[in-house]
């Protein structure tokens, strides 16, 4: 029983946690690809920037003398999401729109977003320094333990993890509602489907582009903030998870928001299953097999975790080239 709890904690929960972060990031990447037709490499640093903004707003709240049982960073996250969305639109106006208007090819847009990411990294280091910070400025991180009847080991969940799960669930439902029930959401799907027909039909592409950056930017900020609340805020935090987010986007089917969510969780779970020490789960079964399992039995060592998303990516691309939810062909 303890082994099962350990498995739940270390494989399933940790997979869902990182999976939720990947999903929140991948939604933005996939929407931006669907509407604007380029891979937005600056998404990772938009996440870091969002996390920094959340911290700034949290410090502001604290200096106003506000206290709360839930971490202030969570409350700082909402104005930070709005700010990140605005900055995303501003970046679009400054960097991407002129290129789009000049008829730049997608590869040029990708290069521009690499430029934006390098610039953001520099700016964040200038103002934020290079050291890790805790997002918990006032109170310590709350930790919840759930005891199961037959186990001595509890299921452990921290406050940011609970917030993350709730936030992701709300986001998924809100996004679904937006895309299938609202005029602008349907227009976004229409533009992603067939941009020429959309403009013939009189759909205002500008509004759709803004909506894309607002959703992408706000969710990037949320993902960055929640990840930093769970771990710590480092300037290179999100850049490291940019590649798994791209893998999740492609695995799910490019341009497919539901695919991005599924892809995010799939990649997250596979990662944590791959680095999980299976001998802990298998050792109680040793008498049954009549063999001794080695003490460490992970599929890959933790340091090679980054390889997992790409293994999944290759497998999916071989057997289902358009991703789980039929996406666009690159």
């Amino acid at each position, binding site marked *: 029983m303890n082994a099962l709890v350990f498995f739940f904690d270390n494989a399933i929960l940790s997979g869902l946690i990182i999976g939720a972060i990947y999903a929140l990031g991948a939604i933005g990447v996939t929407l931006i690809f669907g509407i604007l037709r380029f891979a937005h490499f600056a998404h990772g640093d938009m996440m870091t920037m969002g996390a920094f903004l959340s911290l700034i707003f949290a410090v502001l709240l604290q200096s106003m003398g506000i206290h709360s049982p839930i971490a202030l960073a969570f409350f700082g996250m909402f104005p930070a999401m709005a700010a990140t969305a605005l900055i995303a639109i501003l970046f679009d106006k400054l960097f991407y729109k002129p290129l789009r208007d000049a008829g730049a090819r997608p590869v040029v847009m990708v290069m521009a977003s690499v430029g934006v990411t390098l610039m953001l990294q520099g700016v964040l280091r200038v103002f934020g320094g290079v050291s890790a910070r805790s997002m918990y400025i006032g109170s310590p991180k709350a930790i919840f333990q759930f005891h199961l009847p037959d186990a001595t080991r509890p299921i452990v969940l921290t406050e940011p993890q609970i917030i993350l799960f709730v936030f992701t669930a709300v986001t998924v439902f809100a996004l679904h509602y937006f895309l299938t029930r609202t*005029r602008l959401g*349907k*227009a976004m*799907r*229409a533009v*992603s*489907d*067939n941009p*020429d*027909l*959309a*403009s*013939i*039909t*009189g*759909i*205002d592409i500008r509004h759709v582009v803004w909506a894309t950056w607002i959703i992408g930017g706000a969710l990037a900020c949320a993902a960055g903030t929640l990840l930093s609340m769970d771990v710590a805020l480092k300037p290179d935090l999100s850049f490291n998870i940019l590649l798994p987010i791209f893998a999740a986007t492609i695995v799910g089917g490019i341009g497919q928001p539901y695919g991005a969510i599924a892809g995010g969780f799939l990649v997250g779970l596979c990662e944590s299953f791959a680095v999980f020490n299976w001998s802990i789960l298998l050792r109680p079964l040793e008498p049954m097999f009549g063999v001794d399992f080695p003490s460490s039995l992970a599929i890959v060592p933790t340091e090679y975790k980054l390889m997992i998303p790409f293994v999944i990516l290759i497998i999916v691309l071989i057997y289902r080239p358009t991703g789980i939810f039929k996406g666009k062909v690159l």
Partner: protein
Amino acid sequence: MSLLSIDGLTAGYGQMTILRDVDMALDEGEIGVIVGPNGAGKSTMLKAIFGMLTVTGGSITFDGTDITGIRSEKLAGHRIAYVPQENNVFASLTVEENLEMGAYTRRDDVSHVLDHVYEIFPDMKDKRRQPAGELSGGQRQMVAFGRALMIEPKLILLDEPTAGLSPMFMSVIFDRVIAINRTGVTVAMVEQNAKQALAIAHKGFVLAGGQNSYTDTGQNLLDNPEVARSFLGG
């Protein structure tokens, strides 16, 4: 006074001129059919009317307003709708969502227009929750017509609506074109199946080499031995 009148239109793609000094006039409530050999500039004509090309000469007047050079996204406001030949539905959107997108530029209640479209295309009502991409070619064409009708256009431009369809579906499409026209919508249509199309046309325009070749009523063009020999395959 004509609803649509085109005088001396010269237009093309960028530097390349396709249409030279073309005239065309349609009265309200008419079906006008543009026929001619491949490369005659038939589809170019519709694209020029719908503001998708560079017009270098001549004028396009619609309902008393000069619409020369007005870009396509603005023309919904003038109640002109255009149905392209290919990729003319939003494949991942449902039939009903396709129709709703057709009414994107309208802020008023469009439920009566939706009912009206379902009246013309009763099959669509049963399929309204299906993604348009899952429908057959002919049914997709109906969705494309329906999408265009959502702005309650005065003029609808149809680019080869029967292209790639089975002969059975072709007559269904022509039948629906007549039904749309009967509700008071003026139709300008480009067609490969010249004989069938001219048979339903009030006016026919034969283009060749980017210029007017013959202009007459649909019936007169069908009866004209020279037109028959050169353009209708005898």
